[in-house]
């Protein structure tokens, strides 16, 4: 990594400044010679420090000792103070505060295509010989970077300030629902709780693999893990607050397949592109069919969180393909697999489908209406997914799996 040489700090020029009158007067009153004051300045004592000493009644003998100590301090070696990193950086907060992306200035803004440092050295810091490797395995920007990732991080942090499931949701608006509807909510939220656990596990699995040349990505993914924990929390609260149990667990094939992925780009396609697109549609569906203000207030922020995840997923895939266009077929192959497994999970999860049908029909007796709504959900979900794939540069319009294509009709 290129680093600029150290710039001498501005205060080095202080020794050349005129001595302020009040210092001269105080010094003379205590018997200091002008030469003594100039010597103090020459050894980089500041005007404020000299004035403090004078105000404290410092005699010329004390001053000489102070200067001697300062000389000793200057002569003492602090090698870490001059390690050749870029200094003089003064990043200012803008209208939205001091954001992570604002820090990418000068050499600190150089984000290399490959980060070769295996230790925990922050980007822009000076290395020390012998620092141990931490075991990271991801060192290529193309494998994890997304151009929007710093903003996604800061936006997520702001959302964490605003949305706190315990207190931000008007839980008092919940009232008992019909048994079949309530059980259906429990069933749907059980499956979505599992989705949230999958996200937490996947981020936990891959975060320690990512080297610190790309700390912005790690920061964003940390917020994603926290988002997932809030989703799990809020789904559980919504379910149990009714006094009813959780539902039947999902078949789990998609979870298993996602955990089987062997690289972060592959994992990200499963989690942050395909699954996120479908979860986004489901969150919108549940908001549309919410039964009270609490549910509406729940699925709105969930949807915003997933939108960020989808932005990362598309941005990451796009960056990878920009970096390595020859990997498109590999990525398309992963999606071939992922789509099929997602579709099989759906087909296998009759309880989930039926629960969505009951919710959309507001009761099992309206299953025709409910089923039509679920069909629409699937159509919207596939559309959203295909759009996300196109944005990522991985058009699936002619390649989406037959099961999903059938949902589009």
């Amino acid at each position: 990594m290129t680093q600029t040489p150290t710039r001498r700090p501005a205060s080095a020029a202080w020794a050349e400044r005129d001595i302020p009158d009040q210092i001269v007067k105080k010094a003379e009153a205590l018997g200091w010679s002008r030469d003594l004051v100039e010597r103090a300045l020459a050894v980089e004592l500041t005007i404020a420090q000299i004035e403090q000493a004078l105000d404290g009644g410092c005699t010329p003998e004390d001053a000489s000792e102070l200067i001697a100590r300062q000389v000793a301090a200057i002569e003492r070696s602090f090698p870490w103070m001059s390690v050749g990193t870029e200094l003089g950086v003064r990043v200012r907060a803008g209208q939205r505060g001091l954001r992570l992306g604002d820090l990418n200035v000068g050499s600190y803004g150089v984000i290399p295509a490959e980060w070769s440092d295996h230790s925990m050295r922050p980007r822009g810091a000076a290395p020390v010989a012998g620092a141990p490797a931490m075991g990271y395995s991801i060192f290529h920007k193309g494998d994890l970077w997304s151009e929007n990732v710093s903003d996604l991080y800061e936006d997520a942090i702001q959302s964490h300030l605003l949305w706190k499931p315990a207190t931000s949701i008007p839980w008092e608006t919940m009232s008992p629902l019909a048994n079949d509807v309530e059980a259906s909510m429990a069933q749907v939220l059980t499956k979505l709780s599992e989705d949230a656990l999958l996200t937490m596990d996947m981020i936990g699995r891959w975060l320690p693999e990512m080297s610190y040349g790309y700390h912005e990505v790690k920061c964003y993914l940390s917020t994603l893990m926290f988002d997932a924990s809030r989703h799990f929390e809020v789904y559980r609260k919504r379910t149990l607050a009714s006094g009813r149990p959780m539902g039947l667990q999902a078949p789990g094939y998609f979870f298993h397949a996602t955990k089987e992925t062997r690289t972060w780009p592959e994992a990200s396609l499963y989690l942050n592109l395909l699954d996120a697109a479908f979860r986004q549609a489901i969150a919108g569906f549940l908001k549309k069919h919410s039964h009270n203000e609490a549910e509406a207030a729940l699925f709105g922020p969930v949807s915003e969180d997933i939108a960020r995840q989808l932005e990362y997923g598309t941005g990451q895939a796009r960056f990878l393909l920009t970096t390595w266009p020859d990997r498109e077929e590999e990525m398309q192959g992963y999606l071939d697999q992922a789509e099929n497994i997602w579709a099989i999970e759906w087909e296998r999860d009759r309880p989930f489908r039926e629960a969505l049908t009951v919710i959309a029909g507001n009761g099992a007796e309206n299953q025709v209406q409910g089923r039509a709504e679920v069909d629409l959900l699937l159509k919207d979900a596939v559309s959203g997914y295909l759009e996300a794939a196109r944005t990522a540069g991985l058009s699936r319009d002619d390649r989406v799996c037959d099961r999903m294509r059938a949902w589009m009709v």
Partner: protein
Amino acid sequence: MLIYIDVSMQYANGKGERLMAIDVANETAEDTLQLDWMREAQLAPGVVRPGRRGLTLDEVHVGSFADIPSASENATFAPRGAQRRPGAPHNGLVYRNRADVWSENAALLYEEAVQRQWSSATDVPWERIEPLPDDLELAMCQLCTFLTEVEFIAGDAPAQWTPAVSADFFETKLYLATQVVDEARHLDVFRKRALANGGGLLEQGPGTGLRNILASLDFSEMSVLMHVLGEGFVQTMFRAGEFIAQNEAEKRIFRLCAQDESRHLGFGVMHLRYLVQTEPERREELHSYLDRAEGLLNDPRLAGVSMAESLAILLGGGKAHIDEGMQRFMAIRKRQVNEYMHRLEVAGMGERRARINPAFGPLLDPPRN
């Protein structure tokens, strides 16, 4: 009926075929809703209303919802209390014993973390930073470089253990997620500080102690090394932030970080306590982890001179006063050691006093009775 579905039918190069055995009986015909999955049980009386702190996990975990097994067979994502589906694939190895990952305050700490999120972009009064003499600015930048690295590892370590926690003990998973995001904010805020006032990042630290945390082979090993020892020492330093900070922005940074670290410590101490109460036979094992980590912390070749010097310059008020600063640094170190010992006593490992690293021994106050 079992059939095999080829999920790689469109895999372009024809390789990577994977066949999944899936029971599809009755799964596709949907002329009418079957609703056989519906559970009629009402396990708690009616709709739960939010309490003074809102609707917390503790408030919904009433009746049988509050039952937490001492051992889990659940290697799937079925949340505790969900009906298990036969044949659901396992998702990797998880700890079976609750004691291996549990902390009685995990849910409480999780809720507190959610309530006390903050933003380094907008909650730190960056406009209150003023130019510092060069020695102080460089010292602060060096300290921030060190702390940024510490926070890197403090995020990666809990993250890597998250998949090993069963969904039956999801409170720990939730807590770990809050720690991961806390550490991201810490990483971020110290980097921001280093680049906000005319300085920059300086020299990385030695990293050996950090690697020791990351290299842990057991959740409790990670927790005792990171939460109880490492973050304990960092927390004591943050609480001395009033003396280290040179302006309001830095004071706020240390206060906010200390608030987060308190939760991390709280988890670690209570996990340790639960573990030694439940599995007292593991005491010696835990001591062995601490023996090594305390040794690394005291090895002058590995301890990081730059951190100590930069802190001493900040505490003393400049290079010229580094000797006074070093005295204050040693006072903080003494407090670090005593608070560490106190936390171990709270966790039920007071016997550590007798085998603490010899370099720490002279710093220990007499035991509290």
